[in-house]
């Protein structure tokens, strides 16, 4: 889609998105723990403080006050972006996000909107242990009024974050820790913003639809490569946003492939993967010949590499599951 001429690092994409929107709109402000002078523990935001001064703020360790502060500022004329360092800490900020920010536009009878973005680093795979590795999507998705966006590529990260900042109501913007250092091709013709709530078919195929978000999309793409070698044409859909949810794109894909596999880094029970499958099944049941979810075991996330690696859904597991459920030759390489 892009006439790619350069590559962009995911963390830099996020930084550039914030900078561009702060440049464009002086009501955009940014705060979080160690995000200003130090530039963030994931080195996402160096330089912003130097450039935008008091609009970039180092906060105390006060996740709830941050979230509430963003809410109060958002309903009185600012467009705050705040960072919850690890998405696991969102649990401390949820009351304000869910009970105040997400409900404001509706409960105020549309008198006031609440344009805030909460950014957080999510995901396992780095041996950070059970309280620094979670995906917060299951906690956040069932909250009407709170958009949930998680980009898979640097280009998407930039355009979706810019859209999130411009959005008039709260957006949880989730960045996978394992993606910060990936680089993706981008081009001058890329759109400045991408609409929130629009999924993307990132690879076409006719035999099975693989659906995921964030890092999972990249795993699906690699799995699709390998499945292609085995004669299975996998279509890959990046849902990009879990609220609003673009079921149309998925239904259209499923109507073509008749098989759907959702890949989620998180539990099956209470997860977004089976939820999506249930929503699709209710509308497209007779299009489906087979459908299932590849998720994590129903335990907290273990630390040791020998436990965490097999805990995660990955390319190998996707290939194996699809190939075996579709009856394709069994000798599947894992990892590769």
């Amino acid at each position, binding site marked *: 889609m892009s006439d790619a001429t350069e590559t962009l690092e995911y963390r830099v994409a996020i930084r550039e998105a914030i900078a561009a929107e702060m440049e464009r709109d002086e009501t955009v402000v940014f705060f979080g723990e160690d995000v200003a002078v130090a530039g963030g523990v994931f080195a996402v935001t160096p330089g912003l403080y130097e450039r935008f001064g008091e609009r970039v*703020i180092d906060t*105390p360790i006060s996740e709830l006050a941050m979230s509430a502060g963003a809410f109060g*500022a958002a309903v*009185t004329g600012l467009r705050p972006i705040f960072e919850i360092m690890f998405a696991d800490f969102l649990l401390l900020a949820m009351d304000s996000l869910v009970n105040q920010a997400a409900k*404001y536009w509706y409960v105020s009878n549309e008198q*006031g909107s609440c344009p805030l973005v909460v950014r957080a680093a999510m995901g396992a795979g780095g041996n950070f242990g059970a309280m620094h590795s979670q995906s917060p999507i299951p906690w956040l998705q069932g909250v009407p009024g709170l958009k949930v966006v998680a980009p898979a590529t640097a280009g998407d990260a930039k355009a979706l974050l810019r859209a999130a900042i411009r959005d008039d109501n709260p957006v949880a913007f989730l960045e996978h820790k394992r993606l910060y250092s990936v680089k993706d091709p981008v081009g001058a013709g890329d759109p400045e913003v991408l609409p929130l709530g629009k999924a993307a078919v990132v690879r076409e195929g006719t035999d099975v639809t693989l659906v995921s978000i964030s890092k999972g999309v990249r795993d699906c793409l690699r799995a699709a490569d390998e499945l292609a070698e085995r004669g299975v044409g996998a279509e890959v859909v990046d849902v990009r946003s879990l609220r609003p949810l673009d079921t149309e794109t998925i239904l259209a894909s499923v109507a073509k492939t008749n098989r759907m596999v959702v890949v989620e880094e998180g539990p099956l029970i209470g997860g977004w993967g089976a939820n999506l499958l249930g929503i699709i099944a209710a509308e497209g049941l007779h299009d489906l010949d087979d459908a299932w979810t590849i998720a994590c075991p129903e335990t907290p996330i273990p630390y040791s590499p020998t436990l965490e690696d097999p805990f995660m859904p990955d390319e190998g597991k996707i290939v194996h599951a699809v190939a075996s459920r579709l009856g394709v030759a069994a000798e599947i390489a894992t990892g590769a």
Partner: protein
Amino acid sequence: MAEKTESKAPGAEIDAEGARDLYRRMRLIRTFEDTVQQQFQKGNVHGTTHLYSGQEASGVGVCSMLREGDKVAGTYRGHGHSIALGVDPQKLMDEMFGRATGACGGRAGSMNVVDLEQGLIGCFGIVGGSIGAATGAALAAKLRGTGNVAVAFFGDGTSNQAYFHESLNWAQVERLPVVFVCENNLYMEFTPIENVTAGAIGSRPMAMGIHTRQVDGNDVFAVREAAGEAIEHARSGAGPAFLETMTYRFVGHSRSDPGKYRKPGELDEWKKRDPLILGRKALEERYGIEPERLDEIDADVAKELQEIVERGLAAPFPDPADGGKEFKA
């Protein structure tokens, strides 16, 4: 916010006209609350309500010192905060009645009223929510350079909760123009505040170096004066101020309240210091206003409320097709 213009004066001195307005507004709140209570019993107000009766001087005193553009965050006990700030009582009653003409079209109800035109960024059903929100509004005021302040109302029991601590600290660190008004009515629901609170509430902001004062919350003139100083402190850029208004709730905590927790004689003692009685006394003594003039105000307000109820009960309910529509924003 016409009624707040008189407070543009730097101090809290007020003329007879202004004093009469303060009294009227307190009476309006009291009669409003009595009416809500009656209408609740008749089944016209739904869910639950938390009345402000007895605490009127706190909200009226504080809000009378605010300026255009200042923001207020009230609580679930927010009818008083709303009316003190200038929210149209008709719109407020219609909201209680669940009508389309309500302040929030019937979507919010008693605990969650928003009226942005009046600077009421919200009433907060979640204890502590008002503190965090006002702190955010003060951040916006500071960064936008509006010269405005934000006020958070909250109760004594709320001082034991997360929002209180985190927001006070952040506000002081950033020297935000926010005034924290702790309405200490001695009880957290049915529990005496001292049973669940370590030390004096005011010592907490003081420990953070926040400008702190306690005031007789039933004397609207005293509240005005103290609030004026607190607001001035915040507005000047010196950082947040904390005002503890000592008051008492004359009615149940909410619609269902065993009421057994009050100390014997306590309610009667406080009723002697009813903000309306104190208000009348001050108006008569300090401004030479005759009792009859005040009775006229009372009668006038009673009539106003009667009409409000009539109009409110005649107002249309919201259309379910609106309320249930897809959440777009």
